[in-house]
């Protein structure tokens, strides 16, 4: 864009310049919108429409600004006068507009207009006052001095420079509601949004009604309920989080002792107590932990319902496996679990079974979803509570041990903090529990 603007300045081949006539002062170097459009169309051999669009882009980025209506940054292909922006104020990515500069500009405007700023500018002013309060003396000093320096110039120059600055800040801090040209947001759905419906026919309204009807039917959860669920989640998981409540035997990142990772490996013979407790939180936790799943499988074997879990695992494999395997897997699953008289027949209700058998004719990845969900809910409601109450689980809990903390060394310079360093999220309280006394020694390390 800068090259285009500069080539417009060529005295022979550039845009024709006129003068702007205010009552007493005459300011040169004004151009009309139509001249700009014509020049662009001629130089780049494009149609008038495209030249108009290109000119509008130039105006929106602040390279040319309108003289009569400075707040509407668009190019009108008629006699409205425009002027070029000084290179200092060209939009450049190397120097994004700084808060301090904006504060100085607002202070200057405040002085000039005796306190009557536009609403959003007043908002920005107050916010900046809070944000960069420490530099506010500098802001006011600079604002006053810049105004005094500007007085040394002719009136025409002063006007032009004021307009230039105003345009720069209109582009860099657009008023609310105006599109921010400098934003580089994700350009999603731009083609859909630009399809403007000229006539809103009956179809349009039918679609709207359907959409709103569906929206009414959506389940909504009250935020108080959400927050309670969140609090209970945090309360339940608090002791299990290594950052919040320290990890035993010791934080490997601090003490260079990776016993913690060895003890909590996915498949380990003796899971820790915390881990076994976690299996009781929800069925999903149990299934996601390999050791948990293995023990659950043993339990189901004792109850003679192991085929449920096997079926569920097979469905998972189908969903997440490769596309090439899908037909063979579907057949295998059917043979083993779903066919009447199969070796490990799963107990699905008749309606789901009918639908699944229908869909098996055209097998794809998600063809067993309904059946899988049914079995999952069955296990969750039926077998899982029994598992938690069973002797097997209680035995696992009793066996699982809490790892000991690594002993403190005798020599001071090899002391390591017992627990992980205090989380920055925890506010320091004057009355600290004994568990947190350990991290006090770790401050020197942190």
């Amino acid at each position, binding site marked *: 864009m800068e090259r285009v603007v*500069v080539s417009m300045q*060529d005295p022979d081949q550039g845009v024709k310049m006129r003068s702007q006539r*205010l009552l007493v002062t005459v300011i040169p*170097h004004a151009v009309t919108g139509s001249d700009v459009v014509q020049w662009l169309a001629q130089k780049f051999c494009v149609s008038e429409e495209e030249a108009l669009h290109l000119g509008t882009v130039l105006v929106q980025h602040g390279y040319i600004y309108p003289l009569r209506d400075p707040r509407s940054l668009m190019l009108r292909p008629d006699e409205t006068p425009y002027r070029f922006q000084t*290179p200092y104020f060209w939009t450049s990515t190397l120097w994004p507009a700084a808060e301090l500069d904006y504060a100085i500009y607002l202070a200057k405007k405040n002085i000039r207009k005796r306190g009557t700023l536009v609403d959003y500018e007043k908002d920005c002013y107050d916010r900046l006052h809070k944000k960069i309060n420490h530099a506010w003396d500098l802001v006011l000093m600079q604002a006053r001095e810049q105004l005094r*320096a500007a007085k*040394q110039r002719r009136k025409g*120059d002063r006007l032009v*420079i004021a307009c230039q600055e105003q345009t720069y800040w209109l582009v860099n801090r657009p008023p609310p509601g105006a599109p921010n040209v400098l934003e580089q947001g994700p350009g999603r759905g731009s083609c859909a949004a630009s399809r403007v419906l000229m006539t809103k026919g009956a179809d349009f309204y039918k679609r709207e009604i359907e959409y709103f009807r569906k929206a009414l039917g959506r389940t909504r959860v009250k935020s108080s309920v959400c927050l309670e669920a969140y609090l209970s989640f945090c309360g339940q998981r608090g002791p299990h989080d290594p950052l919040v409540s320290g990890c035993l035997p010791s934080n490997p990142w601090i003490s260079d002792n990776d016993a913690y990772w060895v003890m909590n490996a996915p498949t380990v013979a003796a899971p820790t107590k915390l881990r076994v407790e976690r299996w009781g939180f929800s069925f999903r936790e149990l299934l996601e932990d390999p050791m948990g799943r293995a023990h659950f499988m043993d339990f189901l074997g004792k109850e003679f319902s192991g085929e449920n879990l096997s079926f569920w695992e097979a469905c998972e494999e189908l969903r997440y496996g490769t596309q090439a395997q899908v037909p063979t897997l579907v057949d295998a699953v059917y043979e083993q679990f779903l066919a009447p008289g199969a070796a490990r027949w799963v107990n699905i209700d008749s309606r789901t079974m009918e639908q699944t058998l229908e869909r098996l004719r055209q097998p794809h990845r998600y063809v067993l979803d309904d059946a899988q969900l049914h079995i999952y809910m069955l296990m969750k409601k039926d077998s899982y509570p029994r598992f938690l109450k069973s002797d097997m689980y209680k035995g696992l809990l009793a066996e699982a041990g809490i790892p000991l903390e690594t002993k403190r060394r005798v020599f001071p310079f090899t002391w390591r903090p017992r627990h992980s360093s205090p989380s920055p999220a925890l506010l320091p309280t004057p009355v600290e529990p004994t568990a947190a006394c350990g991290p006090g020694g770790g401050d020197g390390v942190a």
Partner: protein
Amino acid sequence: MAREECKALLDGLNKTTACYHHLVLTVGGSADSQNLRQELQKTRQKAQELAVSTCARLTAVLRDRSLAADERAEFERLWVAFSGCLDLLEADMRRSLELGAAFPLHAPRRPLVRTGVAGASSGVAARALSTRSLRLEAEGDFDVADLRELEREVLQVGEMIDNMEMKVNVPRWTVQARQAAGAELLSTVSAGPSSVVSLQERGGGCDPRKALAAILFGAVLLAAVALAVCVAKLS
């Protein structure tokens, strides 16, 4: 008294920075010339001198441990304002370096942007250097050497800022500004009339001027009519 001295130096630096900012605005535009570049050079040299002396003075005061708490707070405020001013100066210097390189004057690679600013800026430079008026005649290829010097000076100022931050540690969040929001309105009674008139002109309303002109014209017309009637009566 050290505080008054520091304040005076800071005011001087502030004035020079504002004038420098004002001059840099016009680089690359229609008012760009070798004279402008020379004025820029003189202004920034003055600014640098002031900055060095302020820096030395403030550093000496703030490193003195035996300072009372409220005096220390006062000097910290001055320090924050000074470092902000120096940051502004450095940013302006960098921008003027880039703009000067993009719009060289001696062998014009590209024509200057016609921005409508046509007057001389010697008044601004004179204000910066605190002299009554300034008459400069720069040679044809002033800006070439100037750019090299400017580059060196930018680096120097950058180093000065780094040294400042190393020597004195003033956390910004502990400094509370003296002036409240909107304090600039209380002391600017004199700045009002001329700017108000110019803004009205700019807005295109122009009504008071037009009304005045209309009244004058009407009065002249009435006088002419009265004279004509008298002449007609007499003859």
